[in-house]
């Protein structure tokens, strides 16, 4: 008899679902926050620049040239952004495959971040395409360029977005109160996770493999046949550092969404992730060393670019690794967060060194992005944060299931 009541109220819920959706679309909270005041003008400016880009062509807003066809939008937005989104596959691996349940509270927010990062940063790829209306060509199959690394990467982006969407979808179903859909989607999680990890392995490394044919153009200290492996390994600590960094902000900004207990728990998780980062970085360093030996380019270390290379390794891999280790030993959260930021800077350096800074390093005229390229990049990041905030404030992402279970138990109570 309680069941009947539940069903009846579920139907009523379905009727009001559209009204609920409309009400959820309305903004919540204060409008004039410092973040909004900074981000809104930049987003508007960015949209104007994007409009000019499609009206006048890429040359009107970017400094791209015949020798440097890929600039900030690919090197930072896509290549670096995707490395930062690596946290999603690492964490889903730890939680669902390795069954490390203690990381479960942060899986959802990380997967959400991963999905949005792919949506927006990989979406930035569309801005960079000269003939974006033909983007369907490699999808619908009238011209599959299967010999292309980019073909692989593009497909993986799309499929991975689908996988992360499935991984995240139970939260959406809970938000809409669709219990049945939630159960079905939940059952698909492990499949999506395994598929997603496989895709991530291949496209994280694939982003590096994109540059394999540019052997004569990339500085020899960064060009190696092993770029794909380096990209994959570094995406592990890049992604987790992003989780640490982004988590410490999210947990502060959306503090009221998180229980005290989860706050304490979160600190423990940071040390766990710091440990994984330190381990991956340790292996990464030796990979770097092996490759330096293999490529026999150590003579270049005494040049200006050599110093730049050493700065990247010592300042932004070794130093954060040591900071991660000492933060675990001293139980010092702040150190972990500093290390995470340094790691992220190091990843930006590394990716840009391959894609922009070390690309045609010997050219007389160097590529420097225009202010418009930078504004568009910032606008994309801000839009992503807006969407992220919208989702966080509505769906059960930071808070666990209990929030959603409440109404169900109330119904049963009433039935009794």
């Amino acid at each position, binding site marked *: 008899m309680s069941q009947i009541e539940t069903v009846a109220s579920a139907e009523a819920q379905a009727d009001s679902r559209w009204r609920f959706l409309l009400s959820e679309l309305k903004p919540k909270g204060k409008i004039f926050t410092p973040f909004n005041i900074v981000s809104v003008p930049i987003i508007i400016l960015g949209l104007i620049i994007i409009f000019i880009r499609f009206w006048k062509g890429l040359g009107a807003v970017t400094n791209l040239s015949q020798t440097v066809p890929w600039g900030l939008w690919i090197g930072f937005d896509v290549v670096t952004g995707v490395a930062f989104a690596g946290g999603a596959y690492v964490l889903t691996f730890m939680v669902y495959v390795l069954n490390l349940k203690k990381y479960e509270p942060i899986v959802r927010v990380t997967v959400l971040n991963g999905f949005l990062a792919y949506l927006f940063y990989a979406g930035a790829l569309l801005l960079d395409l000269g*003939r974006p209306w033909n983007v369907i060509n490699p999808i619908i199959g009238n011209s599959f360029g299967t010999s292309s690394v980019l073909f692989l990467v593009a497909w993986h982006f799309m499929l991975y977005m689908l996988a992360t969407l499935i991984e995240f979808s139970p939260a959406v179903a809970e938000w809409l109160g669709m219990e049945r859909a939630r159960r079905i989607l939940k059952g698909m999680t492990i499949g999506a996770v395994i598929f997603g990890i496989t895709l991530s392995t*291949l496209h994280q490394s694939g982003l590096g493999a994109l540059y394999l044919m540019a052997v004569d153009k990339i500085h020899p200290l960064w060009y190696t046949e092993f770029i794909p492996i380096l990209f994959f390994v570094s995406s592990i600590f890049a992604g987790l550092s992003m989780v640490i960094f982004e988590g410490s902000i999210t947990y502060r900004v959306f503090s009221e969404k998180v229980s005290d207990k989860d706050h304490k728990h979160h600190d423990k998780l940071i040390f766990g992730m710091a440990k994984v980062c330190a381990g991956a970085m340790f292996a990464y360093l030796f990979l770097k060393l092996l490759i330096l030996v293999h490529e026999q380019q150590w003579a270049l270390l005494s040049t200006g670019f050599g110093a730049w290379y050493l700065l990247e390794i010592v300042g932004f891999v070794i130093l954060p690794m040591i900071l991660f280790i000492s933060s675990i030993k001293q139980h010092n959260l702040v150190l972990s967060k500093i290390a995470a930021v340094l790691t992220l800077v190091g990843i930006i350096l590394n990716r840009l060194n391959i894609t922009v800074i070390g690309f045609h390093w010997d050219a007389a005229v160097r590529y420097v992005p225009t202010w418009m390229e930078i504004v568009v990049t910032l606008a994309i990041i801000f839009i992503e944060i807006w969407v992220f905030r919208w989702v966080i404030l509505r769906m059960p992402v930071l808070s666990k299931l209990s929030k959603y279970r409440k109404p169900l138990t109330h119904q049963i109570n009433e039935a009794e």
Partner: protein
Amino acid sequence: MSINRRNFLKTLGVTGTSIIGARSLSASPSVSTVEMKAVLIDTTRCMGCQSCEYACAEANDLPEPEDYPEVDVNRATTTEQLTVVNGYDTSEGEIYVKKQCFHCNQPACDAACLTKAMHKTDDGPVIWREEKCMGCRYCMVSCPFEVPKFEYDSPVPSIRKCTMCYDRQQEGEIPACVENCPNEAIAFGTRRELLTEARRRISESPDQYYNYIYGEKEAGGTGVLYLASVPFEEVGFDTTVQKESYPEKTKGFLYSVPSIFVLWPMMLLGLYKSTNDKESEDTGDQA
């Protein structure tokens, strides 16, 4: 098409049955049966007259060139100049060199293209197909000679490069630059014929030629071959270009992708099973 077949039959006739036997043995869909066309540029005969540049502009509906070759001024091909002639001051005096797409045997741009817009035809020319291209410019990133040029100032941009006058070839004509060269510095034929011809010239006049054919091995072999009287680095050629083809660089990665797709899910499923199956683990310990 007709010329291909005619040519093919001719080749068969010339080379005889032994070759046919060998072909049918190694017959596989990835190896074409058509001999690739190529161009031989003999810089010892080039006078820098720009006839090829004008002919190219006319054949491709492009504006006529406004500048001219000057010694030690490096003119690059552009979206409106698909071929340019540059002058070099060398130990053997002024030498003029025509530049355009190399039409590699295994082009990096073709391997890079995810829509097959950049396409190595079996006849030899590397062409660009407008209706397929999505303008990602990965071909430009990959090309070791930086040949493909992108129209940055157009909202509907094209990639422009020399196509070895593929359309003219389809109609049985030879490339415009070859046809209009007053000094026969440019020759057109199958790559096999032209390599033989280049070797013949070197061996007949060893004093006149530097003993090297640029393009025979570079980037896995190119469809444009060069002869010169001086070492090629003196006339603006990149002699550090690798001898293996550029798509070989991504071979390791691309060849391993299907294996990873098979191994990863299986391994992850196994791992998942072993960490999420407490019951069987526990009894396993007891047994």
